[in-house]
């Protein structure tokens, strides 16, 4: 990794504000914009924005591996899908309850992540990427063929749980509260992940990315750190899956398929790996471009051809992604 020159050694920026003050002001402004957005946007775009946030969370979870630990996962659909089906199971088997769905979804994703982490962290680089891909296909085949439990190709349809705070509050989700709930979860996840990545644990992950052999030589149990990193990543991907299930009220095997993992990788690369917010920007950019292209040229237009070319161009000419210029700043 190249080290960029330090722009200003002091923590005081141009306007006399410290780095963290600028960060928090920026954070609050963006959150404020996202909070009021549903009042301004027409219903379609409101839903679109909520969905971008969910995809952004999925991509952000995968950034832990790609951007911080230096392992590209092509199998995030498994965690996303298990979160989804876990939530579906909780909503179908018991009286629909948001928190129960969350617990079930996260357990499903955690179980899948434990399984994948145990085997795939024995391998590095490309081998890791391929094994995660193949593991996600295992889950796909199981979910696709086990029709009695998972509904097979048709998936599962369920009702959306109420938004409840035990003993205090109980109301149906509407488009606004759903958006705010998703926003709160995504923003909270971002802050949590940012904190984790700046903690000693996160530093070890980044040192594995920079030089695995040296990290091992210092005495860190690299395999264990990698396993925890895969599980952490899987857990947040599962969270995204639960949110998606709650928003759309169905779980389908398509989301466990490789396409979802591929999209996740695209969001990361386009937005900028190792920034946590980059993947959300990437998700927004990609979904917006997809939507606009199919609006301008019609439904039959193969929008992935121009987008694939943009993707390749970004890898070659802009390997840090759209937000790459801000990477050091965001991680400080």
């Amino acid at each position, binding site marked *: 990794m190249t080290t960029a020159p330090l722009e200003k050694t002091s923590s005081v920026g141009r306007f006399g504000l410290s780095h963290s003050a600028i960060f928090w002001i920026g954070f609050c402004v963006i959150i404020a914009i996202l909070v009021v957005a549903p009042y301004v946007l027409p219903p379609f775009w409101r839903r679109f924005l909520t969905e971008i946030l969910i995809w952004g969370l999925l991509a952000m979870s995968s950034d832990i591996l790609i951007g911080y630990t230096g392992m590209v996962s092509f199998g995030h659909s498994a965690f996303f899908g298990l979160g989804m089906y876990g939530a579906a199971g909780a909503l179908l088997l018991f009286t629909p309850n948001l928190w129960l769905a969350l617990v079930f979804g996260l357990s499903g994703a955690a179980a899948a992540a434990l399984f994948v982490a145990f085997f795939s962290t024995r391998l590095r680089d490309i081998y890791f990427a391929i094994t995660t891909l193949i*593991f996600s296909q295992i889950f796909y085949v199981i979910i696709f063929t086990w029709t009695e439990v998972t509904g097979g190709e048709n998936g599962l349809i369920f009702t959306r749980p109420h938004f409840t705070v035990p003993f205090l509050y109980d109301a149906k989700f509407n488009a606004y509260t759903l958006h705010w709930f998703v926003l709160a979860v995504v923003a909270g996840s971002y802050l949590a992940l940012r904190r984790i990545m700046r903690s000693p644990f996160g530093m070890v992950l980044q040192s594995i990315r920079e030089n695995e052999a040296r990290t091992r030589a210092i005495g860190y149990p690299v395999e264990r750190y990698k396993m925890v990193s895969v599980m952490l990543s899987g857990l947040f991907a599962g969270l995204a899956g639960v949110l998606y299930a709650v928003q759309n009220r169905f779980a389908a095997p398509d989301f466990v398929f490789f396409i979802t993992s591929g999209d996740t990788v695209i969001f990361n690369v386009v937005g900028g790996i190792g920034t946590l917010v980059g993947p959300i920007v990437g998700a927004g950019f990609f979904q917006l471009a997809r939507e606009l292209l199919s609006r301008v040229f019609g439904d*039959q237009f193969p929008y992935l*051809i121009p987008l*694939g*070319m943009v993707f390749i161009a970004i890898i*070659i000419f802009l390997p840090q992604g759209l937000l790459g210029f801000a990477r050091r700043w965001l991680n400080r």
Partner: protein
Amino acid sequence: MEIPWDLVVIQTVNGIVTGMILALVASGLTLIFGIMDVVNFAHGELFMLGAYVGVVVIGATGNFWAALILSAMIVALIGAGMQIVTLRPLIGRDPLNTILVTFGFSLILQNYALWQFGPVARRIPEPMSGYFNLFYLQYPWYRIVIAVLSAAIIGGFYVFLKYSKFGVWIRATTQDRVMAQAMGIPVPWVLTGVFALGASMAAASGVLFAPLVGVTHTMGLDWVLKAFIVVVVGGMGNLGGAIGAAIFVSLLEAYASIWVSPAQAVIVSFIVLILTLLFRPTGLFVPTPK
């Protein structure tokens, strides 16, 4: 449980036939990986593209063998173009970039095929119609011909690698890229040539296999996944291992599909992969490094 011996024999033949095709696909993949350090995610799409070019050529000429040769040549050119435009700038960067770029290519090619040819499967007629009796089945000779042809292509490739001048260049580049360059070997063009060669092998297997299943734009992913499994099980970059693993995995899947549905039989190859990763992470056919 009683073992249906006639089915076992039939499935052995089936497994060897698909195994040979898979070996052809996987040897292109492992060649590109072993020599260029490129994981070609678009390999399945080259396979698919080869089959579609075959469909077009057969539509124009009606000759299967012309389609086989033309398709291999055209896809080799496409592969060379891909390599020059996108993979060459990435030489010297982290190999993970190559998996991303080729993944981008697989998206483009897949959607191009869908856009150009539509979602309905195309058929390539079998070039020969003879049958022989295998128990109660009329087993087509063509399937045997596929296996033999695949073996011949792989064998020819091996001889080419071993004895031709370009083959020597390829092996020299694998051993030491810098030294090879210093000896006057045009390394960038060797890499382009290798990619084109791998692409043409994928295309040839696509045309050979197309009469059995029909050509769709999604056929690539199935194959690239299987080829990846085979390449990891056989040991990355190891040609002999890939061939052995291809036949081994295909036979297991064929036997498994006697008792479970073909969709579930895929899980057998996943299990083989997991066991390999657990006990011999460098590959079944490679001695474990001490």
